C-alpha cells in the first residue's frame, strides 16, 4: 500500500487483532481508536474514551516534554519512542497482580488525508522481561555482596596468618638471642619472612589469589639484603608483568630466599661489587616459565656434586622445586646460576 494513498479508516478493526496495545489520537489529543488490548491493560472500554481527550484520563500527556516529542508526528515527522525507564508513568496500567505494567511505546505518523496526520501509539508490554531484569539485578547484587564479604574474610585470614607468623618469628628470635645462635637460625627467620610477605601482599592487594611476582621479588630481596648485610648489593631484577598463584609464589619465594642468603653467606666476591640477578622468562609455546637466579661470586668448587651434596640449602632448593613440579639445575661458574623451570599452578 502506498503511504501517499493510504487513509486511515476509523471503523477498521484490524488493531483489535494485534498483541500490541494500540490507540490513535488526533492533533487535538482526541482519542480516535482504542484497541482491545489497551482496553484490557487500562480497564477503560473503547466507547468510554473514544471522542474524549486523552489528557482527561492520562494527565501526563499535558506535559511539555511529551507534547514536544509528539509535535512532529502531526505533520508526518519521524517515529518517536518512549522507553519505560525515562517514562515510567505516562501510561498508567496495572497487571492482574496489580503491579505496574512496563511498556515500550512507539508513536508513528498515520496519514489521514488532506496532509493531516494522526498519532498511532503501539505499546509493547515488557513487564515480564522487566521483572526478570529486576530479579536478575537483585540476585547479582546479592552475589556481589556475598563475594565482597568472602573476600573480606579471606583478607582477614591472611592478615591473621601474617600476624601469627610474625609472632612465631619474634619467639624464635628471642630464643636465638638467648642461645646466641644467630648464624645457625637467621635463615629460618628469612624463610618465615618470605611467607609473611606473601600473606601481607594477599591481604593488602587487589587480588586475593594471585601475587604480582615482580613486586613480591623486589620486596623480598630488599628485606634479605637490608637485614643480612650492610654492604650495597647491586640487584638486577628482570621479571615480566606476571601474577602467580599463592603456592607457586610461596615455593619460588623460598627458593629465592635460599639462593640470596647462600650468596650473602658463602658466595660474595671479594674483588668486585656484589651483583645478584633474577630473570624470569616465559616460553609462550609451552606456557613454561624459567627463573634464573645468578650472581657474580666465585664458582662452586670443581668437586662439588649437585646430585650428591647434602647441605641444607641445596636440600631446600631441591625440595621446593619438587613441590613446584619443576626442574632445577646449577651452572657452577663463573657467575654461578640456578635455573628453575616450572609451570605455574592453575588458580
Amino acid at each position, binding site marked *: 500500500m502506498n503511504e501517499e494513498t493510504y487513509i486511515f479508516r476509523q471503523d477498521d478493526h484490524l488493531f483489535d487483532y494485534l498483541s500490541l496495545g494500540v490507540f490513535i489520537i488526533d492533533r487535538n489529543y482526541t482519542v480516535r481508536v482504542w484497541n482491545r488490548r489497551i482496553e484490557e491493560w487500562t480497564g477503560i472500554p473503547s466507547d468510554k474514551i473514544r471522542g474524549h481527550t486523552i489528557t482527561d484520563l492520562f494527565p501526563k500527556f499535558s506535559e511539555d516534554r511529551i507534547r514536544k516529542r509528539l509535535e512532529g508526528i502531526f505533520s508526518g*515527522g*519521524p517515529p518517536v519512542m518512549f*522507553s519505560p525507564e525515562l517514562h515510567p508513568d505516562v501510561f498508567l496500567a496495572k497487571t492482574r497482580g496489580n503491579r505496574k505494567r512496563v511498556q515500550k511505546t512507539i508513536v508513528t505518523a498515520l496519514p489521514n488525508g488532506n496532509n493531516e496526520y494522526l498519532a498511532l501509539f503501539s505499546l509493547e508490554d515488557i513487564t515480564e522481561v*522487566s521483572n526478570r531484569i529486576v530479579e536478575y*539485578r537483585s540476585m547479582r547484587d546479592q552475589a556481589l555482596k556475598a563475594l565482597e564479604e568472602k573476600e573480606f574474610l579471606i583478607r582477614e585470614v591472611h592478615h591473621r596468618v601474617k600476624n601469627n607468623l610474625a609472632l612465631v618469628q619474634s619467639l624464635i628470635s628471642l630464643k636465638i638471642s638467648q642461645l646466641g645462635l644467630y648464624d645457625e637460625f637467621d635463615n629460618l627467620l628469612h624463610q618465615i619472612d618470605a611467607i609473611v610477605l606473601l600473606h601481607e601482599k594477599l591481604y593488602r592487594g587487589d587480588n586475593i589469589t594471585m601475587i604480582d611476582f615482580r613486586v613480591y621479588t623486589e620486596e623480598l630481596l630488599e628485606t634479605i639484603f637490608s637485614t643480612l648485610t650492610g654492604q650495597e648489593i647491586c640487584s638486577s631484577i628482570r621479571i615480566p608483568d606476571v601474577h602467580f598463584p599463592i603456592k607457586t609464589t610461596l615455593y619460588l619465594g623460598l627458593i629465592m630466599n635460599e639462593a640470596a642468603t647462600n650468596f650473602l653467606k658463602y658466595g660474595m666476591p671479594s674483588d668486585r661489587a656484589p651483583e645478584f640477578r633474577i630473570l624470569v622468562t616465559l616460553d609462550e609455546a609451552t606456557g613454561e616459565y624459567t627463573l634464573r637466579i645468578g650472581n657474580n661470586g666465585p664458582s662452586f668448587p670443581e668437586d662439588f656434586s649437585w646430585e650428591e651434596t647434602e647441605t641444607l640449602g641445596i636440600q631446600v632448593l631441591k625440595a621446593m622445586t619438587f613441590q613446584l613440579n619443576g626442574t632445577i639445575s646449577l651452572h657452577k661458574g663463573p657467575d654461578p646460576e640456578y635455573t628453575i623451570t616450572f609451570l605455574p599452578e592453575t588458580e
Partner: protein
Amino acid sequence: MRTMTDIQLDVIRELFTLGAGRAADVLNTYLDSHIQLKIPLVKILSSESVKGEFEHLEVEHYSSVEMGFSQSLQGTAELVFLTESASLLVEAITGSDDYRFHFDEIKIATFSEIGNIIINAVMGTVMNELNLPLTFSIPNFYDGTIGERIESISDSVILKAQIDFSVEKLNITGNILFLFNVVSFSVLLSAIDVYIKQP
C-alpha cells in the same frame, strides 16, 4: 561525486550542531543535571575508509540505534557507541551506576530512545532547513562489531559526525553515521548548494 567541499561540510556541521542542540533540549527535560551535545567533527567516508575510523573493529562491541529514511533521500541514520559507552551514557542519563554490567533490555530501550531523540532532531533539522521531505522507519537497536556492520555496507557514501555528550563531569563520545546511496548523496549536495545560495 562522493566528497564535499569545505563550505558544504561547514553547512552540514552547522545543521547537525543545531539539531544536536535541539536534542539536548529534549533530553534536558528528562534530567536533573544538564546535558550538552556537541558535534565537533563531520567527515565523508567510503565503505572502505570507514574501517580506519574505528579501533578494534572486529573485536569491540558497538551498540547502535538505526532509523532508515526514504522519499527525497534514501539511506539510514545510526547513532553508534561502544557498548560500554552506551551503557555508561544510559546510566548517566538515568542516574544509576550499573554500567559495568549487562546491557539489558531496559537499558537498550533507554538507549534506543536517546538515539531516536538525537536522530529525529538532527535529521529533522536537515529536512526542514534543506527542504528535503523524508519518511522514517521505526528505530531499531543493533549490537555487534563494526566489522560485521561494515560488511553489510556496500557502495555507500557515509557521513560520519562525532557526537560528544557532557553530563555533569562525564564526557562520552560516540558517532552518528548517515549512509546514503550515491544518488541520494548527490541530492543532498544539491540541496546544500541551494541552501548556501539562499539570501
